[in-house]
C-alpha cells in the first residue's frame, strides 16, 4: 500500500498489534479528565477514522461499535451514544477510503472534518432528544483540532510501515 495513491513509495503491510495498540492508546487518551475544556479532540474518533480509511477491511463498523460502548461507560454518557456516532463515523470513513487516499494528508483532513462534525451533531441530537441541555458551541471545536491533528497523526500511525524490510543503504525504493 502507498502512503497516498499518488505516491511512488510502497509501504509495508500494517501490523495488527500496532493497529489495536494505537486504538487502545487513543481510548486511554480520551479518558484523560479534561473537564469541559474547549478544543480537546476526540482521539479515539480520529484514530478510528484513520484506520477506517487505511484499512477498511480490518477496522469498520464493529470496531467502532465496541469502542463506542467502552467510551460511553468511561465517560458516563448514555450507553450507545458514542457507539452510534462511531458506527456512523467508521461507515463514512470506510466509504471515503478509496477516494481520500488520492489526496495529500492536509486535503484528507478536509475530507475527515465533516465526518467528525457529523459525529458530534449526532451525539448532540441524541442527547437533546433525551432531554439534555445544549452543551454550547465550544463542543464542536474538538473536531477542528482533531482535523488539524490528522497530518501529524498520518506520519505517527504509518511510521512502522515506512520502515524498510531489511536495512540496506542502497535500496532502490
Amino acid at each position, binding site marked *: 500500500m502507498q502512503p497516498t495513491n499518488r505516491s511512488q513509495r510502497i509501504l509495508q503491510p500494517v501490523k495488527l498489534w500496532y493497529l489495536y495498540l494505537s486504538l487502545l492508546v487513543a481510548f486511554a487518551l480520551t479518558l484523560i479528565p479534561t*473537564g469541559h475544556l474547549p478544543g480537546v479532540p476526540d482521539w479515539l474518533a480520529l484514530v478510528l477514522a484513520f484506520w477506517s480509511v487505511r484499512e477498511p477491511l480490518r477496522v469498520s463498523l*464493529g470496531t467502532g*461499535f465496541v469502542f463506542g460502548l467502552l467510551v460511553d461507560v*468511561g465517560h458516563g454518557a448514555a*450507553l450507545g451514544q458514542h457507539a452510534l456516532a462511531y*458506527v456512523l463515523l467508521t461507515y463514512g470513513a*470506510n*466509504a471515503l477510503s478509496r477516494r481520500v487516499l488520492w489526496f495529500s494528508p492536509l486535503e484528507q483532513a478536509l475530507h475527515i472534518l465533516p465526518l467528525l462534525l457529523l459525529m458530534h451533531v449526532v451525539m448532540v441530537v441524541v442527547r437533546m432528544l433525551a432531554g439534555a*441541555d445544549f452543551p454550547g458551541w465550544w463542543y464542536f471545536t474538538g473536531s477542528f483540532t482533531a482535523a488539524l491533528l490528522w497530518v501529524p497523526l498520518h506520519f505517527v500511525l504509518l511510521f512502522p510501515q515506512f520502515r524498510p524490510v531489511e536495512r540496506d543503504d542502497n535500496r532502490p525504493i
Partner: protein
Amino acid sequence: MSLIGHNTPPIFKRGPAPTVRLMLYVSAALVLLVTDLKFRYLEFMRQTVAVVLYPVERAAATPADLVLNAATYFATLAKVQQENSLLRRQQLRMSEQLMRHEQLAQENGRLRILLGMRDELPARSVAADVLYAAHDPFSRKVILDRGSTHGIAQGDAVVDERGVIGQVTRVHPIQAEVTLLTDKEQAIPIAVQRNGLRGVVFGAGAGQLELRYLPATADVQPGDTLLTSGLDGLYLPGLPVAKVIRVDRDTQAFARIFCLPVGGVEQSTQVLVMGRLSPPQPPMSEEGGDDVVVGADTGKDS
C-alpha cells in the same frame, strides 16, 4: 465483509452488505440508548465494564493529577499562611458553635422525649475527594474517589463545608458519580427556612437553580435560605441548599423563582457524602397487610 460502494461478485461474498451492517449496528445502538435512557436496565453491564476500565481511567487521570499537584506545590508561602490564618479563625468560630451544638443536641433530645417524638435517624457520612469532572458535556457530574466498598450508596447527599452540592447517582465499587444540583435533571426537595414552605428545586443551567411549582402568591422573597426538607427519605433535613436571588411573579400561574446554590457546586474538591442509615418508610396501612419489611426504628410510628 465487502467495501462500501463496491458490489462484490457472489463468489467473493464476505458477510452481509455494508448497508445491512450499518442498519444492524445503528439499530443496536438505538436499542441500547432507549434501554439506558428510558428504563435504566443496563446499570449492571455498565458497572462490570467500569470495573475493568478502572485501571485505565486511573492511569489516564495521572496527567491531570500531576498538573494539579504541581499547581499546589508551587503555591506561594504567603498564600499558605493566609489560608492558615483563615482556617484558624474559622476553627475558632466553629469550636464555639460546636460547644453550643453539644448542649443544644442534648436539649433537643430531652424535648423530643418530652414530646414523644421519634429520635432523629442517625446519619452516616464518608469523606471523599472529587477526582475530576465527568467527561459527558451534556450533564453536570463529578466523580468521587470513594465507592460502594467505602459505604457510599446511591441517592446519598453530597455536601461541602457550606451546603449541599449534589447527589450520588451511580455507584461503582471504588468510585461514585455525583450529579450536581445545577444539572438539568437533578431535583431536590427543600423547605424555606423562614416559614417552612415546601417545594422542589431543579437545576436551571448556568450555575443557577429554580424553585418550581409554587403559586405566584407563594411567600418567597429574594434572600430566603432554602434547606433540605428531608421528605424524600434520602437527604437529611436541614442542610442548606440555596439562596433565592430573584422572584418573578407576573408570568403565569406559577412564580419563577431563581436561586443560587450555597455550596461550591462546581468548585469544591473535598466533600462529605451523607446518607441515612435506614430511610424512613411511609406509614403502613392500618391492617398491616403490606408485605414490606419495616426497619425496627419505624415501629414507633403511628
